[in-house]
């Protein structure tokens, strides 16, 4: 008896959401959407905008690429410059002796 009552109750709870009727859309919602579109200047994504975006991304990638290239070239270093720098550092170390009285 108790089990049957429980099963009936559970079935009732399940069924209760199946009788949901559609609710009307609040008035003035379309106008709100239009206002939002105008306010934030939302434009449809058409082909021109997509091409423009793609061109922008390509330009950014190119700029980044060239910066990275320059940095890596710099890291590899110019051998003659590197040598002169090491000689300069060495001379500084030799000339500046803390233990000299």
């Amino acid at each position, binding site marked *: 008896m108790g089990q049957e009552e429980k099963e009936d109750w559970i079935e*009732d709870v399940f069924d209760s959401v199946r009788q949901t009727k*559609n609710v009307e859309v609040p008035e003035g*919602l379309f106008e709100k959407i239009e206002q939002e579109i105008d306010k934030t200047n939302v434009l*449809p994504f058409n082909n021109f905008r997509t091409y423009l975006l793609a061109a922008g991304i390509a330009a950014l990638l190119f700029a980044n690429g060239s910066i990275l290239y320059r940095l890596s070239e710099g890291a590899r270093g110019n051998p003659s410059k590197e040598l002169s720098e090491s000689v300069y550092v060495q001379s500084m170390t030799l000339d500046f002796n803390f233990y000299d009285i």
Partner: protein
Amino acid sequence: MDQNSLLAKIANGDRNSFRIFFDTHSELVFNVALKFARNKQDAEEITQEVFIKVFRFARNFEGKSSATTWLYRMAVNTSLNYLKKYKKGHSIESVDIAPQKFYHPGIESDHKEKANLMFELVEYLPDKQKTAFILSYVDDLPRKEVAAIMEMSLKAVESLLQRAKKKLRVNLEKIYQERRIDK
């Protein structure tokens, strides 16, 4: 006018076509959002967001699925994202934390209490189970359409639905026992 041509016009910024599209589909979007958000104000916000997306991304509609399926998908995803953004921290274990009371305006008064309880429990389901349950069980959409909306196989949808029902049943049994003890 068919939905594809309407969307093509919207993609070019045609406001009249946008209005027609809104009038045809806004009820669907609003009601899906209402079942997910369980709050009229949030459902309104979600509907607004969905139609701004429609206006913006109408050209992305490829016609592979129907406009309704596309819209359903957008409504579900926007609702889930909205909930994640504004209602963090829910889990199935926290059923005893008093959740927000919501009496769906589209439910007859005789069923309101039970429906409220059911929607409360649905809220704690994982996103995919929740979606499968709302679309398939509450909205009574054919499983095939649910699979198309969720971009899943029919089998996967059926499995999600089964798991959702099982979880809901377990929680309902607990609640039933608790109510018996309270009496």
